[in-house]
C-alpha cells in the first residue's frame, strides 16, 4: 500500500480507509525488539466503531466523529467547514497565526525535505499518508481554490481538489496524525511549517465546528476551566494529595517536607502539571524538598487552574489556549509573586513562556522561567551537597520538543546530568534535533479505540529506537537503566510504550523525571530515594 497513495484518494467517497498498516511495513527496531515475532499485533478497530464513527483514513480513529445520518447533514458539515476555512484566513478570526499560515500555504515547493525529518513518516515505513506534505497539500489546494478563488488556473497551478464530506472527515483524523513537534519545519529550506498546518486544521475544526479530540476538549481544557484541572481534581483534593505527598517524602528522605500554598508576595509560583500529583507524586515531592532546602521563597496556588499548568488549547484551539494562559497569569498577579516557574511539563512551558507571551500585557506580563533553569542554578550554587555515586547507573535523556526545539532550553538539564549522573549518555540525535516521544500534541492522553496501537507502533517508534540504541551496551536485565523525561506527557507516553513492549519486565528500563535524579543524589537524603519499581 505504501508509496502508491495518490492525493486524489483523499476525497474518494467509499468511506474505506486509505491505507492499511502491517507491522512488517514499519521501520525495524533494534534488539530486543528486532524480532517480528515479538511484535504485538494491532487491535483492529471494532465493527461497532467503524459503523458509528468516521474511520476512512487508516486503521485507527482518534477523534470519533459520528458519521452523518444523511446527505443533508453531510452538506451542512461541508458548509461549516468551508465557513471555517474562510475564517482561518481572515485577520479578525485568526490574527494569531495568519502570517506563518499564509507563508506556508503560498511557498511550499514540494521538495519533500520535510519528509526526511518526520519520525511518523519514517517509522511508518514511509507510508504516503503520513508524509507531512500530504496533509498540507490538501489544505493548500483548498486554500487556492476556495479562498483565492483561482478557478481552473488554480487547478493547473496548484492541483485539483474536490471538497466533500469524506475529505473533511479524513482531514479531521489526519490533523491528529501529527505530533506538532515541528521537526519538519526545522528542516524546510523555505521555512514552511507542516506542523502549523495540522495545528490550524485542528483549530478550524474546534473553533468553527466544535470538533476536537474529547481528551483535549471536554476532558481537557473544558474540565480545567470547570473544576481547575483536567485530572478532575478540585483544589481541596489537590491539597489533600500534596499533604500526603509531603508526609511520604518526609518519611522517605528523612527530611521534613512542607508545601506552601497561596503565599502572597512569594518569589516563585510553581505550576505543576497536575498529572504529576496523581501519577508520579515523587516529582512534586522532590520539587518541594529541593526548593525548601535551597531556601527559595515559593508557593503553589489553589485557585482554579492554578494547580494545573496544562494548557491543551495549545494543540487545538487558540481561544481555549488564551483562556487558560490568562488564568495562570492572573493567579500570579493576584499573589504578587516575582515569577512563575513551570514544573516538568513541556507543553506548559511553551504555552506560558513562549506562545502566550504576546497575550500577556501590562500587569499580567509576569516573568516566566523553566524549572530546569532554576534547578540547574540551585544544583550549581553549592547550597546542597550531592553524591553522584548514588546515581551510578546508565541514564539517558529524552528532550521534550516543547522545551527544547520550541523553547531552546537545552543545556541546563544536561549540566545537571553530567554532574550528577556518571552513566549519562545522549540519544542520537538529541537537543534541538531530537525526535518526539510520539505522545506530543495530546496523543499521550488519547487512548480511544485502538489509537494506542498507532501511538506506540508508529508515532513512538522512532523514540523507542533511540532509547534502545542509547542503552545498547547494557540492554540486558542485569543492569537497571533510567530514561529521564522532564515532561509529564512524554513520561506518560514513555511509560505506556515501555509497558507495551515489556521493556521494564524484560530489560529493566525504567522511566522517570529529572528532579528525582537530583534528590536521589542528595547527601542529606536517605539513600535509595529511587525505588526501581514500576509505576
Amino acid at each position, binding site marked *: 500500500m505504501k508509496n502508491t497513495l495518490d492525493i486524489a484518494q483523499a476525497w474518494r467517497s467509499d468511506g474505506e480507509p486509505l491505507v492499511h498498516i502491517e507491522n512488517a511495513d514499519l521501520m525495524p527496531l533494534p534488539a530486543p525488539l528486532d524480532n517480528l515475532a515479538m511484535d504485538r499485533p494491532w487491535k483492529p478497530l471494532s465493527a461497532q466503531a467503524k459503523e458509528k464513527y468516521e474511520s476512512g483514513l487508516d486503521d485507527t480513529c482518534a477523534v470519533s466523529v459520528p458519521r452523518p445520518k444523511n446527505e443533508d447533514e453531510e452538506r451542512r458539515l461541508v458548509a461549516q467547514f468551508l465557513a471555517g476555512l474562510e475564517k482561518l484566513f481572515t485577520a479578525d478570526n485568526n*490574527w494569531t497565526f495568519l502570517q506563518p499560515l499564509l507563508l506556508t500555504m503560498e511557498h511550499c515547493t514540494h521538495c519533500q525535505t520535510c519528509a526526511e525529518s518526520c519520525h511518523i513518516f519514517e517509522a511508518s515505513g514511509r507510508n504516503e499518508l503520513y508524509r507531512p506534505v500530504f496533509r498540507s497539500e490538501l489544505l493548500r489546494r483548498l486554500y487556492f481554490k476556495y479562498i483565492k478563488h483561482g478557478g481552473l488556473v488554480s487547478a493547473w497551478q496548484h492541483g485539483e481538489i474536490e471538497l466533500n464530506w469524506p475529505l473533511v472527515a479524513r482531514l479531521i483524523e489526519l490533523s491528529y496524525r501529527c505530533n506538532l513537534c515541528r521537526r519538519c519545519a526545522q528542516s524546510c529550506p523555505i521555512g514552511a511549517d507542516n506542523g502549523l498546518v495540522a495545528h490550524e486544521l485542528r483549530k478550524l475544526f474546534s473553533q468553527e465546528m466544535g470538533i476536537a479530540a474529547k481528551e483535549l476538549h471536554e476532558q481537557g481544557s473544558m474540565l480545567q476551566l470547570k473544576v481547575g484541572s483536567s485530572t478532575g481534581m478540585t483544589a481541596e483534593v489537590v491539597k489533600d494529595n500534596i499533604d500526603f505527598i509531603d508526609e511520604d517524602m518526609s518519611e522517605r528522605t528523612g527530611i521534613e517536607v512542607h508545601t506552601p500554598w497561596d503565599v502572597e508576595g512569594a518569589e516563585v509560583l510553581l505550576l505543576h502539571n497536575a498529572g504529576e500529583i496523581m501519577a508520579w507524586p515523587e516529582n512534586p515531592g522532590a520539587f518541594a524538598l529541593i526548593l525548601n532546602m535551597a531556601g527559595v521563597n515559593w508557593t503553589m496556588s489553589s485557585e482554579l487552574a492554578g494547580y494545573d499548568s496544562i494548557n491543551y488549547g495549545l494543540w487545538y484551539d487558540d481561544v481555549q489556549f488564551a483562556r487558560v494562559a*490568562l488564568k495562570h497569569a492572573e493567579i500570579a498577579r493576584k499573589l504578587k509573586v516575582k515569577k512563575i516557574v513551570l514544573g516538568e511539563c513541556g507543553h506548559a512551558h511553551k504555552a506560558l513562556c513562549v506562545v502566550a507571551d504576546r497575550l500577556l500585557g501590562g500587569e499580567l506580563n509576569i516573568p516566566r522561567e523553566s524549572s530546569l533553569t532554576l534547578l540547574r542554578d540551585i544544583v550549581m550554587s553549592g547550597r546542597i551537597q550531592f553524591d553522584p555515586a548514588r546515581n551510578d547507573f546508565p541514564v539517558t535523556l529524552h528532550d521534550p520538543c516543547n522545551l527544547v526545539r520550541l523553547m531552546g532550553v537545552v*543545556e541546563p538539564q544536561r549540566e545537571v546530568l553530567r554532574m550528577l549522573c556518571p552513566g549519562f549518555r545522549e540519544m542520537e540525535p538529541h*537537543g534541538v534535533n531530537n525526535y518526539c516521544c510520539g505522545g506530543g500534541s495530546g496523543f499521550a492522553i488519547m487512548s480511544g479505540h485502538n489509537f494506542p496501537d498507532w501511538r506506540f507502533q508508529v508515532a513512538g517508534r522512532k523514540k523507542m529506537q533511540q532509547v534502545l540504541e542509547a542503552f545498547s551496551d547494557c540492554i540486558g536485565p542485569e543492569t537497571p537503566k533510567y530514561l529521564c523525561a522532564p515532561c509529564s506527557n512524554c513520561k506518560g507516553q514513555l511509560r505506556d510504550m515501555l509497558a507495551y513492549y515489556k521493556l521494564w519486565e524484560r530489560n529493566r528500563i525504567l522511566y522517570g523525571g529529572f528532579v528525582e535524579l537530583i534528590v536521589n543524589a542528595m547527601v542529606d537524603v536517605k539513600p535509595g530515594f529511587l525505588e526501581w519499581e514500576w509505576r
Partner: protein
Amino acid sequence: MTVAVYLSIYAGLLVFILGSVLRIVQYARTPIHLRWELYPVPHEEGRRAEHGGSYFESGNWWARPRRPSRIGELRAMIPEIAFLKALWEFNRGLWYASFLFHGGLYLTVATVLLLFVSIALPGAAGGTTLFWLHALYNVTGYAAVAMTLMGAMGLLFRRLADPELKNYTSPADLFNLHFFIVAYGLVAAGYLVRPENSAGAAECIRALVRFDTSVRVGRGFGAGLILSSILLAYIPFTHMAHFIAKYFTYHLVRWDDRPNVRGGTIESRVAGHLARRPTWSAAHIGADGEKTWAQLATANPAAEVRK
C-alpha cells in the same frame, strides 16, 4: 524586434518589481502573530547559538540585557542563501540540481550587474579594466546559462521520475521548469548564433539604458530576451517568490524570539488585535461578531456549570 525587446524588458522588470512589492506588502501587513519560534535561533549569544539554546537557559533572563547577534544571523543566512545549506543537510539528493539551478540564477543577476558596471565605467577607466570585466561577465554569463539549464533539467527529471515528487507536482511546476529551459536555451542559442552585425550583451544593455533603437538585436537572441522578460514578470505570482517569503519565515517566524515587555511596541500592536471581533461558530467560543477577542479570551465557557 529591437523596440519589442526593450519594451518587454522594461515591462518585465516593472511587473517583477511591482509584483514583488505587492508580495512584501501583503506579508508585512498581516498581523503580528503569537510567538512560534524554532530553535536553533542563530542570533542567540555565544555558545547558545551552537547548541540551539535560548535566553530561557539563563535564570531571571528578563533582568539581563539581551544582545541578539546580527553576525550570528549572517552566519546562518549566507550559507543558506548562497549554498542552500538546509537542502544540503536534509535532502542531499535534490541539492545537486537545486544548487545548480539557484547558482545559475545568482550568476545571471551577477552577469547583468557586471554588464551595467561595464557600460557605466568612464572611458578613462582604461582598456585593462574593461578587458577583465568583459572576461568576467563572459564567464559568469556562460556559467549562468549552463548551470540554470542543467539545474532546471535535473529538477525536471526528478519531478518526472521520482514518485515521491511526482505525486505533488502540478502541471504548473512542470511548466515553470520548461519555461526556464526554453527561455535560457533561447537566450544562449540566440546569442551564440546572432548575426555578425547584431548587438552583443554589453551593446544591448547600453542601448537599452539609452533606449537607442538604432542597435540591431538578433531575432533569436531578442526572442530569448522577450521570453526571459515574461518569465521575470511571472515569478512574483508563483511560489517561486520564496526568495521574498524566506525573509518573513526566517526573521519573523523562526527567529522571532523578541520578548513582550510592558509598555513596549509588541504589547501595543497586540492590543489592537485583541479588539478584533471574531465570528467563529463553535458554541464554546461564544463569538457573536460583537464580542472582542479579549472578551472571548477572558470568558469561561464552563463557568456557568461550576459549583
